[in-house]
């Protein structure tokens, strides 16, 4: 196990290193002189000289990369042109919204996707299964922002049950502010619940073909007990690991949803920074999301192998 874990962590580190080169290069391939890219059009000559000296832009590109990497490892991701503040603190401001939104979305995904996937698997081949699987494919074909706009129209504008936009922090207004995240998390949950539904169904069907399930049936255990104790327990392992990947992907998938609901999260920050040409923030967000994405993947992969002793360790 440990040798596998080390190898897997090593691969992640190498991928991260290669990704960091691409992210570093981002500032240099964006149209315009990097110094203007970093400081914006309103920079004074003094500022330009100071930054050019500070970043060592006259030095070879490899030296620049190493010094950038050094800053990043110390938590210095540069300064936002628009906010005139460190990029890391700008991203941290959006983290609360994004993490809460992703968590609430995963709760919906679990409540909707897993039980319905189970029902489809147990009723495999019937019209109910075909209907549910078809509905899942339909849900995966709907743009999240369209679902979001309809939720706003119905539940915010017509019925007035939930607020249509924004999110005041729960730390200032209390847990009641979570109602601002109900509609966006539902919109974001739709396609992801569909994927988890299909995965739960497929995984349960896989397990139900195993020899030990046939043995359990043959020795006369009641059908629902076979499902509960033999099929479900083994099938859910794959589903739980898919939860990890989905959560990691949600941080970037939320870009559109956060824009529709005007949520102050990381996703909307990216879009606004693109429109404001605030390149240091875009670079910082891409870096943070890629790191989180790779780390969650690593953790999920390792815990999957830890929990399921049958998975071969190479």
């Amino acid at each position: 196990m440990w040798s596998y874990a080390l190898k897997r962590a090593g691969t992640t580190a190498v991928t991260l290193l290669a990704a960091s080169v691409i992210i570093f290069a981002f500032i240099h391939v964006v149209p315009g002189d990097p110094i203007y890219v970093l400081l914006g059009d309103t920079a004074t000559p003094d500022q330009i000289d100071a930054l050019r000296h500070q970043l060592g832009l006259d030095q070879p590109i490899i030296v620049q990369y190493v010094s950038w990497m050094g800053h990043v490892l110390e938590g210095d991701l540069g300064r936002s042109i628009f906010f005139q503040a460190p990029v890391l603190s700008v991203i941290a401001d959006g983290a609360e919204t994004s993490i809460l939104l992703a968590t609430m979305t995963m709760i919906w995904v679990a409540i909707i996707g897993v039980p319905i996937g189970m029902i489809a698997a147990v009723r495999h081949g019937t019209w109910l299964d075909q209907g549910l699987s078809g509905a899942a494919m339909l849900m995966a074909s709907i743009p999240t922002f369209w679902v979001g706009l309809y939720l706003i129209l119905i539940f915010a504008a017509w019925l007035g049950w939930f607020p249509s936009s924004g999110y005041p922090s729960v730390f200032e207004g209390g847990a009641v502010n979570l109602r601002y995240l109900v509609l966006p998390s539902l919109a974001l949950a739709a396609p992801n619940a569909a994927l988890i539904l299909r995965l739960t169904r497929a995984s349960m069907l896989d397990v139900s073909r195993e020899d030990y399930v046939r043995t359990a049936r043959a020795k006369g255990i009641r059908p629902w007990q076979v499902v509960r104790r033999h099929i479900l327990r083994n099938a859910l392992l794959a589903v739980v690991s898919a939860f990890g990947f989905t959560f990691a992907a949600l941080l970037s998938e939320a870009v559109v949803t956060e824009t529709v609901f005007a949520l102050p999260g990381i996703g909307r920050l990216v879009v606004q920074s693109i429109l404001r040409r605030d390149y240091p923030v875009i670079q910082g967000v891409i870096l943070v999301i890629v790191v989180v994405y790779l780390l969650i993947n690593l953790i999920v992969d390792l815990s999957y192998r830890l929990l399921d002793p049958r998975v071969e360790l190479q």
Partner: protein
Amino acid sequence: MSRDAAILWLKPFVARPIALAGLGILLATVFAAAFAPWLSPYDPYAIDPPIRLTPPGLAHWFGTDQFGRDTLSRTIHSARMALLIGSGVVVFALATGVPIGVLSALFPRLGHVLMRMVDVLMAFPTLLLALGLIVILAPSVANAILAIGLGYMTTTTRIVYGLTLRLRAETYVEAARSMGAGTTWLIGRHILPNLISPLLVQASFVFAFAQLGAASLDFLGLGAPPEIPSWGNMLAESRTFITRAPWLLFFPGMMIVATAFSLNLVGDALRDRLDPRFRQVFGEKG
């Protein structure tokens, strides 16, 4: 195509009426795109302020938008942009993914390097990768195709790589090789012909997700220029008027769902007629 081959391809659709319906919707979309100027009752760009935000009625079946433009005509013309982006992304993903995947599988040393590079690209979530590229390249239709296509190039490469590895181990491939067949011959004679049907499956899924990706970019104002009619652009404009003019939200959105759903149905039906050994390369998610 011979008559028998045609029957073989149509079989999965006849067995599933809903997949046949999906194929019908797709053909209708292609028809609408091809004959848009003749099918549209009005000029999609014609502004008519006095009748702005008119609800659907006999004169304007899908109503009018905030400039008095006919929503039906704009919806029909948008089919062109949808097909252009979709086929552009598919062509890009296949034109890059097939050579990289096949060569990586046939030449393990080269493959080791190339597949690691694909892994690195896969560390970037698809939408984030697309947004980053749009920042570098500036928003336009061609760049939207490139930005979305890059994300599906990686998955296509992975699938082609997996399939080619399997094909390479087949007895008939080894037999051909031991009789002195060259790499070009192997690729042209044994590898590519066997990749056609799984790639058709992959193409329909990529086409479907490209629809959703392009709609997202348009909606964020980072895709096709706003004056070009596209379903995503129409939805972006409708946002301000959702309570006053809900019909502006309904029709373009329905078209995105209809095309993406149809493509998924067709892809699913095609996957079921695949060689079972290939099917598992796609997994359940497709």
